[in-house]
């Protein structure tokens, strides 16, 4: 199972407490994790990736295993620790504003 940590506003929107667990078939990539997330929680469509282009929204970042994966290719395999569920895939709202 893949573990996804969402920012507060997206947890509220999806009406979940804590992390989300998802069953994602291999290969585990940004795209496949987000596809599975949006399939389970349709309200999140468009909130992480743009509706039209499918690209990461500008103020969203993806972290895992102490690395910033935001600029990795969507179809690039995620670290094994994420794929095995040992480490969470973090969706981050970039820190901005006063």
């Amino acid at each position: 199972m893949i573990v996804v940590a969402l920012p507060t506003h997206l947890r509220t929107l999806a009406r979940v407490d804590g992390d989300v667990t998802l069953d994602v078939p291999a290969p585990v990539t940004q795209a496949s994790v987000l596809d599975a997330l949006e399939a389970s929680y349709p309200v999140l469509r468009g909130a992480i990736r743009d509706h039209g282009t499918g690209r990461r929204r500008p103020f969203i970042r993806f972290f895992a295993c102490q690395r910033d994966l935001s600029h990795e290719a969507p179809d690039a395999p995620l670290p094994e620790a994420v794929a095995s569920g040992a480490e969470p895939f973090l969706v981050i709202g970039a820190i901005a504003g006063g």
Partner: protein
Amino acid sequence: MSGVRVLVGTRKGAFVLTADGKRRSWEVSGPHFGGWEIYHVKGSPADPNRLFASQTSGWFGQQVQRSDDGGKTWTPVDKTFVYDGATGTHQWYDGTPHPWEFKRVWHFEPSLTDPDTVYAGVEDAALFRSTDGGKSWQELAALRTHSTGARWQPGAGGMCLHTILLDPAKAGRMFVAISAAGAFRSDDAGRSWRPINRGLRSQYIPDPEAEVGHCVHRIAQHRARPDVLFMQKHWDVLRSDDAGGQWREISGDLPTDFGFTIEVHAHEPDTVYVFPIKSDSEHYVPDAKLRVYRSRAGGNEWEALTKGLPQRDCYVNVLRDASSVDALDPCGIYFGTTGGQVYASADAGDSWTAIVRDLPAVLSVEVQTLP
């Protein structure tokens, strides 16, 4: 006894205020969608318990929420606003062509008769409609693709379609206003549009009397006299007696004619309210005094309404969707400020009280008069 429900959108959530017909004691619920910008919340005239809320975020984009129980519970509905066909370009701030890009919903206008039909005014300026209670949205593309569209330009707040008026007397007639394009009218339910900006004069555009390019902030209309329109433009308060065919200035003796919103009394079509702001570079009230101005003559002659409003050290703004009226007798007038107060008058503006204060900055105020 009848009651009143006030729907307040703020920078950090929505609030619902309720009172009985006396309008003295208010209950406040919220924040709903805490932390999100709520640009607008509005109820259906055909089913007052059906509400639509525009929930937006610079991080997470647009959400649309619907309530079928007067704001107690909410359900997310469709939030995809896809322009119909080629998007084309409008003018960017520097005058260069810029493609239309959806950013957010500024305003919902539910149908006067069908609770499943609602219009949405969005940024970048376009008009959408849902006929299934918000489950899907379709653009009425004739507005965005109007021959003048390439000349529209964003104002400081973005190129937003913020005003939608559905004519209660003429089926298919509707008015919209866009910053900074101007006002437009359709007589065929949105299949075609004409600019209705004759008589507007705007010194901040190259041709002050251009067909389009005016920063109209708000239009108001009385249901019993829908051909008479009142407008708060960036600068200037104006009136049209022929459904926008021609406008004339009615700023008269106002201390400043800059402002964002304008209202018409529910029972007196010639009683108009404006909320003057000092200037477009100082978005706060003049002389540090919060004053509503009322004209009982349809414009030109204005009286300051101050009882119960702060008359010193006040530096708030009143935004374009942040006022409303109820249909009780005497008519109630309501407005919200960027300082987080919502003021109400239960006597047509003679006296005011803050029915809630210290909210986040208020973006919108709508009032429902309940049976």
